[in-house]
């Protein structure tokens, strides 16, 4: 039996009828066409599907769309404002934080969460903050540097 959900995605109000078993990631990708959120593993381990749910990074493959009724979702498509990259996005660009880019949307969302909670993280804290996100290409070093870049950029250094 379908159920109506009302929510805001990247600042846009949405109302849709969905089956309760529809995963949030499938709602975002297939119903809304927001394919920036990726599906890497579908088993809650890789973090490629990470989105912000009311300001908290969550794995959208491990939630049903009906659970986010009334919430605010921010996906990677919502990170740049008026064509200006978010500091974390800029960090990935400047520090070569990606190769194939498959993990990148999830990495950016999780890194943004990390910096909101800890504006000046150590390298170790960055590694720990990104524990739930896997990258098969970069070896992580450039990703860590991208987050460091974003931290200093935000601090106005």
């Amino acid at each position, binding site marked *: *039996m379908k*159920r109506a959900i009302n929510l805001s995605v990247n600042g846009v109000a949405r109302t849709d009828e969905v*089956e*309760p*078993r529809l*995963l949030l990631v499938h709602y975002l990708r297939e119903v809304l066409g927001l394919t920036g959120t990726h599906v890497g593993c*579908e*088993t*809650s*381990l890789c*973090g490629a599907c*990470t989105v912000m*749910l009311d300001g*908290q*990074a*969550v*794995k959208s493959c*491990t*939630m*049903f769309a*009906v*659970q986010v*009724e009334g919430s605010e979702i921010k996906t990677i498509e919502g990170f740049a404002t008026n064509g200006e990259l978010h500091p974390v996005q800029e960090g990935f660009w400047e520090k070569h934080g990606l190769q194939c880019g498959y993990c990148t949307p999830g990495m950016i969302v*999780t890194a943004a*969460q*990390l910096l909101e*909670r800890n504006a000046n993280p150590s390298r170790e804290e960055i590694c720990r*903050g990104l*524990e*739930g*996100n896997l990258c098969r290409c970069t070896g992580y070093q450039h990703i860590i540097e991208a987050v460091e870049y974003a931290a200093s950029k935000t601090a106005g250094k």
Partner: protein
Amino acid sequence: MIAAQFDYKVPNSLEEAVSLIAADPDGSKILAGGHSLIPAMKLRLAQPQVLVDIARIKSLAYIREQGDEILIGATTTHYQLESSALLRQICPLLPLCAASIGDVQVRNKGTIGGSLAHSDPAGDWPAAALALKAELVLIGQGGERVVKADDFFVDFLTTDLQPGEILREIRIKKPTGKFGHAYEKVPHPASGFAVVGVAVNLSLKADGSCESASIGVTGVGVKAYRPNGAESALSGSSLNDAAVIEAASHACDGVDLNNDLFASGEYRCHLAKVHTRRAIAKAKASAK
């Protein structure tokens, strides 16, 4: 990876949740953080007909001091426990345990109540609940009852919760006097779950010797347990190195050991002893 069909219900209160479940106690399941249940549903290991989402009941998530107790609402997330300044001060074992769970995304969504109710043999909260001698408040159609953590974990993925019952609150006596806490864990490299986890709650006398100790061990057997031999060896001891090593040697006495592809029972038992020793030493060093 698509779950079987189900009906989704959003209660506005705990009472409503209880009556929604009572309509079909065997076909319904509580949904809290969903971070154990949804993976199981995607694999169709669980196929409930109805999900009752208690995470939407705002009044069920809280951390509160009341008299000599700490009260924690069942849907309080791992992250809320990890980041609680109050708990860091009055009961550091809770934030230590919370911080060790999975990754940030899992901690943002998963709840302490869901973890205790699920009783995963590799779950972290059961170890902390045992070490802190928590009491669990369960509510069902017949009213409320309070169960000690010692009696709550029954078997593999099985607790004392009866069909239709909801875990509402976790109650913990505030540690008093000179006490020390530690949580030592060997995380599974992929999921972060505990291959072995040891929670230690030490109460010390003024001279630094041990007044009493309670310990919770997870990952080693089909369910978390208290290693009684280790606890009684510590009680009254000086907590010098020899006493700690002797106590830790009893970490898996009499336990039916978990054996799986990842770690043999023998290896888990070895890890339990090593990490019990380290956790006791850390708890002692942290005592104030």
